[in-house]
């Protein structure tokens, strides 16, 4: 019986190794689905039970503290993994009668807050039960980033330098573009019923560019582009043009505050590698973007189910392995010296 359990354990380790290799050929998304499928769920639970049984059955595994730490640590990791999986979270939610909040993301513009997040898997809106406000969002670059004018249309996307000068050929279908004028403080006044653009006083600032597009059939259109109103559009504008910075990003930082029932309950400068932890959730800096309403920050909200169990398990495992093998090496060394 004991022998049988040990052989089963040995075989289980070999099978798990082969499953990992198989999973590596699937790619991350398919591997996640595979290892979370029902047959594999049965496998994980069976493996955990086997380990538990081994600790009970084998004297060495519960009498020798290091071996106990090792095997119990593995059980904790497996339990944490089971609990943290989608199915595990769903089950906990139904047992505890709490709403089940899956990993989701928030899209926030500076100065705004929201309690609605969108599920990572299918984009469905979810109510978080608390709201997250973005005070400020900053991007830091290695060195100085260069500003470009980013031009988008159905025909393609282009970057052009924001300086007055030469024609740029976008493509045969899209035609040419030229920066006609640059302004550091654009003011528009009306002259004889027509809008006229000119530089305003230097104390204010409203950087802007006037672009001239020439279509392949020689139709000329002009467009204003504003740094501060990046969504600016007028009837007849063919292209969406936004000034953007280009450079290698060193950091992006969201200054975030969490509110529950209108009261601030947590705050942090969230960066990659430094999430905010609040009420069973980690809130991460995920990415950022820019659209007609300006620059926004994308935050990821992830429940922390099972994470403490997993890391506790890892800790026991590492301690146990170090202790066990330190002793082993020492005793073998002595043995060798004698012989």
């Amino acid at each position, binding site marked *: 019986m004991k022998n049988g359990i040990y052989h089963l354990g040995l075989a289980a380790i*070999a099978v*798990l190794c082969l499953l*990992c290799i198989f999973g590596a050929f699937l790619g991350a998304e398919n591997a996640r689905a595979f290892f979370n499928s029902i047959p594999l769920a049965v496998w994980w639970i069976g493996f955990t039970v086997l380990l538990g049984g081994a600790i009970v059955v084998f004297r060495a595994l519960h009498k020798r503290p290091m071996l106990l730490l090792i095997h119990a640590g593995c059980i904790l990791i497996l339990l944490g993994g089971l609990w943290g999986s989608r199915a595990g979270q769903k089950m906990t939610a139904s047992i505890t009668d709490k709403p089940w909040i899956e990993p989701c993301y928030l899209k926030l513009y500076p100065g705004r807050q929201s309690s609605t997040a969108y599920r990572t898997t299918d984009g469905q809106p979810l109510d978080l039960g608390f709201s997250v406000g973005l005070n400020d969002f900053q991007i830091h670059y290695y060195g100085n980033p260069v500003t470009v004018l980013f031009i988008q249309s159905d025909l393609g996307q282009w970057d052009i330098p924001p300086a007055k000068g030469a024609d740029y050929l976008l493509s045969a279908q899209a035609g040419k573009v030229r920066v006609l004028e640059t302004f550091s403080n654009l003011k528009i006044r009306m002259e004889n019923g027509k809008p006229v653009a000119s530089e305003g006083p230097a104390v204010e600032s409203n950087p802007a560019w006037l672009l001239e597009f020439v279509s392949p059939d020689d139709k000329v259109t002009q467009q204003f582009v504003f740094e501060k109103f990046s969504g600016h559009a007028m009837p007849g504008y063919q292209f969406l043009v936004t000034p953007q910075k280009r450079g290698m990003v060193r950091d*992006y930082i969201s200054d975030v505050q969490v509110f529950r029932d209108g009261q601030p309950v947590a705050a942090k400068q969230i*960066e990659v*590698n430094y999430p905010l932890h609040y009420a069973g959730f980690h809130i991460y800096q995920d990415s950022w973007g820019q659209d007609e309403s300006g620059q926004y920050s994308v935050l990821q909200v992830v429940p922390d189910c099972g994470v403490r169990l997993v*890391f506790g398990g890892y800790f026991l495992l590492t301690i146990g392995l170090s202790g066990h093998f330190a002793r082993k090496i020492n005793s073998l060394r002595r043995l060798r010296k004698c012989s």
Partner: protein
Amino acid sequence: MQLKYSNEGLLIYAMMAVVAVGLVLRVIRKKQAAVFVAVIACLVGLTAWIMRWIAVEHIPMQNMFEVFLTLGVFLLPVGLAARRFTGIDPPSDGLGDFILTLIILFPAGFVFSDAPQKLPPALQSPLFGPHVAVYMLSYVLMAKAALQAGLGLYHHCTGCKQLNAHSPCEDYELSAYLLVCLGFPLLSLGLFLGSVWGKLAWGDWWGWDPKELWSLACWLMYLFYFHWRYLFRQKMPRTNCVCVILGLVFIIITLLWVNLSNVFRGMHNYAS
């Protein structure tokens, strides 16, 4: 194949030349001189490593070039420490360190690009250094173990058993075992630190990424080896040795997966 004329590149070639001299001295059994030459080789390598650190402004463990440079520079001192720790000292181990150093420095010197890269936000973590360093330390130990295991297979003879003495195979097998005993806790620590980092940077301690799965397969291979060896002790030295060698094969696949996966089209990995 690509020659490097940068200072680091030239220092790598210099180190390889000095290591080759050490190897020759070791072969003709001038042990003292070989140790002296090994120290010089390490100093040359360390200079390259520090220069690289200063040039890229972060610990040089980011890309393949830097990883192999670090492995090559620190293999000899790690090997020496491992010998002290485990008490093994068959002549093959010292000799093996010279050979392994040459093998590992080769791709750094001739294959991988040394274009400097800035650290993207995800890599700017206090866990970056420890996670990679611990893994590399254990990889070096596992490589040394695989070498001993290989020698064990090579020297296997059924006749020795009857003489009732230590067969060389058993000796090599034991050396391999001791080295894996030293490397395995480090491999586990690397996995641990990687999981913590994954949780902090990406929101999950396990992402089912091919590279992660390969690293778990390595860990499980050695786990299998320990349980197998516990079951059969040294009754099956050859099978034990095969496990240790397979472990290293898996490690190499893990290390090079990003490069190898170009062979298998459409695969996900960190680099893409």
